């Protein structure tokens, strides 16, 4: 078992095609509100676990540090996030960047999706836009996307 062998398994996956690349212009980072959007299927213990092929999202409370990784795939190292949440969800690092003024503010809420999707249409047409609108309503300017 090796990381390169596991990655090679994904070689045949079809890539989603976007005819154009949307491109938003953020405010200066030192004035921006930043959220994390992860595809690591993180959720708080009192939230529903992710079901297989779950295309929904969970709203994560940035003031909490109790997260479970509900990712269904066995194809990732689990000890990194077990040792340090920031290996996948760098919430403490963002708090530090806010404290030193590098970023304006860390959003109070963050989002989590399940990344192991074979059919991306629901994420692209439904839960993705819904999550984006939710963050916009929270006045988030910048989103850092992290996989697992």
């Amino acid at each position: 078992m090796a990381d390169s062998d596991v990655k090679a398994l994904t070689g045949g996956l079809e890539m989603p095609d976007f005819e154009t690349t949307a491109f938003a212009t953020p405010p200066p980072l030192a004035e921006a509100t930043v959220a994390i959007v992860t595809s690591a299927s993180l959720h708080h213990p009192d939230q529903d676990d992710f079901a297989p092929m779950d295309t929904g999202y969970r709203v994560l409370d940035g003031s909490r540090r109790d997260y479970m990784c509900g990712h269904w795939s066995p194809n990732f190292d689990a000890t990194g996030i077990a040792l340090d949440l920031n290996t996948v969800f760098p919430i403490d690092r963002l708090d530090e960047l806010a404290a030193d003024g590098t970023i304006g503010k860390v959003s109070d809420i963050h989002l989590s999706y399940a990344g192991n999707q074979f059919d991306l249409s629901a994420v692209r047409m439904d839960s993705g836009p819904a999550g984006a609108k939710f963050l916009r309503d929270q006045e988030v300017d910048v989103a850092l996307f992290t996989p697992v």
Partner: protein
Amino acid sequence: MSTLAHVFEEAGIATVALGSIGAHIQGTAPPRGLWCEFPLGRPLGKPNDADFQHRVLAHAFGLLRSPEPVVEKFAESITDDGTETMSCELPPRHDPSLHPAVDEANGLRPAYDRAVAKLGNRTGAGRTVSADDIPAAVQSFINVAEGTPWKEAGIPGIPARVAQDIRGYYETAALALAEHAPAAWAGARWFFTSTEAGRAILAARKSMADAGEKHPIWFYITPGDM
């Protein structure tokens, strides 16, 4: 991940996407992407290394200054050559009336509890199988390995999810037993090659495959390259 970045950008949120697989992040071309050549499961690179994680974030957020879509590669790489295995002592045999794998799972409980008390439970038991029920779940895979059809073996949930909880229980316990932070995948290699439970799950997977069970039922019980 990159698909979501496109969608969020369309809604007016500037995005920066980290990606661990170069072909993916380059092929999906998010508005701003940073290919970090790190093992799967460690997109910020190194656990408990704030300086390293800040270097990743500094590069990522620096992409926000680009006037056009951009995908770059982080300067530092972390590679796994598939050889490093966690080193930690397994509990001695305690109850000879039990299968060695079940006895082993019971014996790891104190270490598991210490690890959860220290680190929290992010990838251990509890998604489908509680820590209390891990030994019985191990027994169910032993049943499959010994020839019982998986639907009659007492597996307390979808086999892949149950196996994931067992592996998580073991890898979490190992973090309390080892005196070092393991390299990526070292915990998984330890579980599947050094523990009775890991070997039982591998044997059950083979038994299910040999019996002609549907591919997704048995394939996702272990990492795909096994």
